């Protein structure tokens, strides 16, 4: 099992979670009672790509896998640094 201890399964604590603002974009579904449509766990899918896009926007480095860790960012930025240094030699 990859995550077999809570010590190493790093999920956000109450000190980590950012303020969360919830907005509903209401477009009634014509097949649902009173326009209702099931949401289920679909909202899980959006945040990770949005964050990766934000990172690319901020530092110009794109990632397309998660989990994304500071160590991954560091590795990419270091590689870019070395490439830039090599280019100026």
């Amino acid at each position, binding site marked *: 099992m990859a995550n077999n*201890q809570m*010590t*190493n399964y*790093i999920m*956000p*604590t*109450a*000190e*980590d979670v950012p303020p969360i603002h919830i907005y509903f974009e209401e477009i009634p579904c014509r097949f649902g009672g009173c326009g209702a449509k099931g949401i289920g766990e679909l909202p899980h899918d959006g945040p990770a790509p949005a964050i990766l896009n934000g990172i690319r926007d901020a530092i110009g480095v794109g990632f397309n896998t998660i989990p994304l860790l*500071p*160590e991954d960012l*560091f*590795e990419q930025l*270091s590689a870019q640094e070395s490439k830039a240094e090599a280019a100026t030699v």
Partner: protein
Amino acid sequence: MRGNAEAHELIAPGSLDGVLELLASAPGEWTPIAGGTEIMVAYAAGRLREKKLVSLWGLSELRFIECSGDSIAIGAGVTFRDLRAHAGVESGAPLLANAATWIGSIANQSRATIGGNLVNGSPAADSSPALLVYDAEVELISVRGRRRIPYSSFHTGYKRNAMAPDELLFAVHVPLRFAQHKQYLRKVGTRRAMAISKVALAGTALLKAGVVSEIRLAAASLAAFPTRLYRAEAALQGRPLIAATIREAQEKLTAEVVPIDDIRSTAAYRSRVAANLLDEFLRELLPAEARR
């Protein structure tokens, strides 16, 4: 839950003397357990090899904080909640009071003890960097008497320390001579709370006319045990504090530490972040116009 309660003996002699007599009667056989925040985790995971445990919980002889004129004596049984709530520790050893807030959660802090933190000897121990830059001493006790050694000599290897098999950690002594020093402590973890450190750096420094007259640097998670950064210190001691000196100190730090790749982080990341933390500390000591 893989622990088997019937496979362990746990006794509570009820007094410090009782514990010391037990340790002396069978050196190395009985493992002290204070708040249990390490031992009980191993127990529940089915990997507690120690079958004979002697409880230190509730021993008032070990749970004291005494401020005298020139030092604070902290009993090994003091919990991290005790430490962070104590006004004398907050004012005399603020890095230690700060570190106490890092230990796990509120629930862990009310049980985890400073003695347990040091004797458990994790390279990532939260109270260690602060104690190292404060030149703390540890007091060890047995039926044979007491002795003090510098805390910097306490750890002798990965999870090995200088205690004899019949000895118990009795107290930690923190000199109260850092009121004028610049002080720094930062931990970089996997999240903001409940995080074992990827790297932590502590520092105390005294500058006189821009020259480093005293410097102590210590780190967690960069070696087999929490350690002073002697080469980085040597690059700063007696030198004028300018950007070039800081860079040199960073290079010496990077050369002297031996971080590893593990489940929490990578050696390269740890090294770079430690150097960044050193820069963060030292840059604040430069006159405002010299900071980049």
